[in-house]
Structures are given as structure tokens and as C-alpha cells.
């Protein structure tokens, strides 16, 4: 298994707050890595830092042996890092198809025609039918597929999915799980940040558990979910919620 992405001792500080603290992990081709942990653990920040939207305070990121820690987000996208956003952010000016084309036009720098072809094949792959619909008219599932499609359009080496199952019902979740498996089979390294544990256990090959910016456990979900520290971290979250 080749390591596509290596994050070595990455740290992200905001003023006095350390959101990500000295984390090291790697993601391999053809596997699905889960990043889990209670709210506020720093999961989305990890994605933001790896995709380049936020600058690193410390540490190194390499993509296929290449140092990318100082690269701006658009360059990282072109080199093969894609991500979806927790809150779906469709581009309102464009139709569903055009939204996906954007990923192909800039992530892969295809011509307009090639980009359209690629977008069409992605829509097929995702079972996204109403490609000329305006984004206002799309359902939640369609919007999620849109995000996914746009991220896929740049032909990524590694794909980060930030809580993509949120808001989906049971059958929609299953459809998503299938799609993600197919993506993995295409050779893309997939990293899912998830809160829905059923999904994590079904989908992931292994997980890392974050709490307060640190990795407190790693391994297969079945083993990790039984560990004391992990349970404690989630319970701590429940307690905080109860106190509110």
C-alpha cells in the first residue's frame, strides 16, 4: 500500500488556542481512513490545514513524497487534494453540471469540452440525473452528490469528506456508502470525517480518533471503539451537552 498523503507532526494554533496538536498520520491509496472524535476535536481543522485553506503553524505535509506545506490551496487541488465542505456550498450561478465542471476546469485544467465530458461521466457515476437543474431546486442528497462530484472532477489522489452523511436518511446513507466504496475502488485515497458511527464501522478500513487536537487512538474501528480513552472522550462530549 502506497502512502499518498503524510501529515507529520502538524500543528495549528489560533492565537492562544491549539486546535491541532502535533498530529502524525498517513493515508493510503485504495483505503478509507476515518477521522473521528467529539465535537471541537479539530477534525475539520485538519482538513482545512491539509487542503491549504488555513496555514500550518508547524509540521509537514507531503503528497506522494512532495512537500506541499507551503503551497496555496489551488495548487494543492491541482496536485490532487480534494475536499467537500461540511455545509454544502453550491455555486449558485451555475447548474449542477456546471458546478462539477468547475472542479474539472481548474483542478485538472481541462478544456471546456473535456471538462463537460468529465462532469457528465461523474454525474453518471453518482447517479445524478437532473444535471441542468439550478442548485436552488436540488434535494439534500443531490447537493451532497454535487459536492462530491465537484471534488471528484479534479481527479484527486486523496479525497476528504467532511461529515458528508449529515442530514441523509437511511437509504440515502446507504447509497452514499456505496458511492464512496466505488470511489475507493478507483484508487482514490479517501478520508472521511464522520459522526455517524454506523457509517464509520461499515465504511472505514481504519480510523484515527481525535480529541482536543490530539490523536488518542488509532486502528480498526471495532478495536478503537472499545478503548477507554475513546469512550471517555465521547462521554465527555455528552456531559458537556447535558450541561447546556
Amino acid at each position, binding site marked *: 500500500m502506497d502512502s499518498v498523503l503524510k501529515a507529520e507532526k502538524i500543528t495549528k494554533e489560533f492565537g492562544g488556542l491549539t486546535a491541532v496538536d502535533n498530529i502524525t498520520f498517513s493515508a493510503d491509496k485504495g483505503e478509507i481512513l476515518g477521522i473521528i472524535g467529539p465535537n471541537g476535536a479539530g477534525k475539520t481543522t485538519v482538513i482545512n490545514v491539509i487542503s491549504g485553506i488555513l496555514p500550518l503553524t508547524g509540521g509537514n505535509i507531503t503528497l506522494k513524497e512532495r512537500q506541499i506545506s507551503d503551497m496555496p490551496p489551488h495548487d494543492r487541488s491541482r496536485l490532487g487534494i480534494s475536499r467537500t465542505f461540511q455545509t454544502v456550498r453550491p455555486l449558485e450561478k451555475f447548474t449542477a453540471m456546471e458546478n462539477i465542471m*468547475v472542479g474539472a476546469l481548474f483542478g485538472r485544467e481541462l478544456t471546456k469540452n473535456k471538462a463537460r465530458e468529465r462532469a457528465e461521466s461523474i454525474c453518471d457515476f453518482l447517479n445524478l440525473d437532473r444535471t441542468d437543474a439550478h442548485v436552488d431546486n436540488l434535494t439534500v442528497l443531490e447537493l451532497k452528490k454535487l459536492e462530491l462530484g465537484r471534488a471528484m472532477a479534479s481527479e484527486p489522489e486523496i479525497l476528504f469528506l467532511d461529515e458528508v452523511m449529515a442530514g441523509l436518511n437511511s437509504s440515502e446513507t446507504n447509497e452514499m456508502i456505496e458511492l464512496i466504496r466505488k470511489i475507493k475502488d478507483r484508487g482514490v485515497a479517501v478520508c472521511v470525517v464522520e459522526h455517524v458511527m454506523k457509517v464509520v464501522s461499515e465504511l472505514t478500513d481504519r480510523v484515527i480518533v481525535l480529541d482536543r487536537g490530539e490523536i488518542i487512538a488509532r486502528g480498526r474501528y471495532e478495536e478503537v471503539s472499545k478503548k477507554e480513552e475513546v469512550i471517555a472522550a465521547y462521554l465527555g462530549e455528552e456531559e458537556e451537552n447535558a450541561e447546556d
Partner: protein
Amino acid sequence: MKKYAFYLILLLLAVAFPFYIDGYLLHVFLTIFIFMTMALSWDMMLRTGQLSFANAGFFGMGGYVSMVTVSSLEIDPLLSLIFAVVFAAAVAFILGLPVLKLRGIYFAIVTLALAHVFEVIAMNLEITGGSTGMVLPEAIFGGDMQLLYWLVLGMALLTIGISEFFARSRMHYAMHSIRNDELTAQASGINVSRTLIIVFVTSSALQGLAGAIYVQQYAFVLPESTFSLDYLLLPIAMALVGGTLSTAGPVVGAIFLGLISEYLRLIMPYGHLLIYGLVIAVIILFMPGGIYKPVRNIILNRILNLGGAS
């Protein structure tokens, strides 16, 4: 096909204007085309999501550079236009690098402040004639209105061409993606700062060109009139009234508002601007998307019977 025929006819009409329209009306259209250039160039920045108030600044800058190069280097006014464009583009590039990192109202206000800085500089340097401005012995083309008209028409067509280029190339996707959601744009591989710089430099260069040509008409510059807020506000009004984020909108808006203000000025020596302001206010209140689409639909559907939806 019918659409292109329609445009071609309009183009031929416009080119042929000087042959059958008299000096006064010709001058009206000349001014409309200058403002059309300003309105379109402003709209280009808007498509990237940035509200710029620098129009009048680059307009004035272009005018002054043109005048100064003619008077100091004794070159032909036509050549001075090139200086104006290059200078405006260069300044836009250098200033754009830091300033384009700002967003929203901060960007707007800094561009407004920069425009005023340009004005103050023009008002205080000796070479620009200070607060009394500059006058040249001769206007461009010796004052030949026809040639001037074609020059201005050419500039307007160039601007329309650039606007359409932006709309049909991948720039279209880059610009509107940045406008809709900058994070998504970045994550999709769009180089936001490069896109913004390209558009900013282009629109500033066009504004500089417009200013240079306008000023050479009269061979005269004066800080408060060459940098007048009119060159900021009227183009914006035209773009908004016609419909922003498109090529046709600012074009239609410039013609519409330009003709209305001229008509009003004729029939009401006093108070025409008042009606003008009311027109703007009323259109915003009742047709906020601009008049272009509704009017186009009426023309296409009812008059030309081309059918089809909007």
C-alpha cells in the same frame, strides 16, 4: 442566427452614425459609449464579487497621463492613449497586489480612497498643472468629431469584446465561483489572487483608456472635473439599471440612462438630474434585476416573435 443578424445590424448602424447624424447627437452617443466602457469595466470586477469604487480614479489617471505625455513628450495624442493604458495597468497591478486581499466594504472604501489619492496627487504636482489643470493647444484629431466617434466606438467594442471573452472562457467560471463562494473556488483549484489581478488590471486599463480619450476630446484637465464622482457613480448606475453581471446589461443601461439624461436635460433645463435620480430610485425599487432581461423578453417575444422562455 437571428440574434447575430440583429447585433450585426446594430453594429453597422452604430458605425454609420457619423454619416447621417449631426454633431450634437453624435456627441451624445460618443459620451454614451465612454460611459458604457466605464460601466462594463466596473461590471467585470463585480463578477468576481468585488465592489470597486476606483473607476473615477483610473479614469482621471488615464486622462492626466495622456495630457502630461502629450505636453511633455510632445507626442501625438493617439500615442498618448497607449501611455495612459499602460500606466493605469501598471498602477493597478502594483496596488492590486496588496489591496485585492481585502474584501467587501473594506475593498470598496480603499478603492475609493485610492481614487481620491490620485486626485490629490494630480492637484499638487507641478507637472500636472496643480489645481488649475492643464490645457493643450489642440484636441485629438484636430477636433474631428467623426474620427473621435469611431475611436470611442472602437473602445466600446473592445470593451464589449473583452467582457464577452470573460463570459465565454473559463474566466467566467473562475470569476463567478469566486463571487459565489471563495473557499469552494480555492478548493476547486482556482487561483483567486491571479484571477482578481487579471480582472482588476484589465478593468483599470480600460478605465484609463476611457479617461484619456475623454480628456483629449477637449484637450483639458482639471482635478475636480476629471476625477469627478460622476465617472464613478453614473457607470455604476448604468450597470445596475441595465442589469449587472452581464455584457448586455451595462450596454443597455448606458444607452438607456444616457439617452434619458440627455433628453431630460433638453426638455427640463432645471431639474433633469432630479428626474434622473428618481428614475434610478424607481427602477431599483421595482425592477431590481435591471431592465435588460424584462425588456429583452418583450422585444424577443412580443415584437420579434422569436418565442422561447427567458
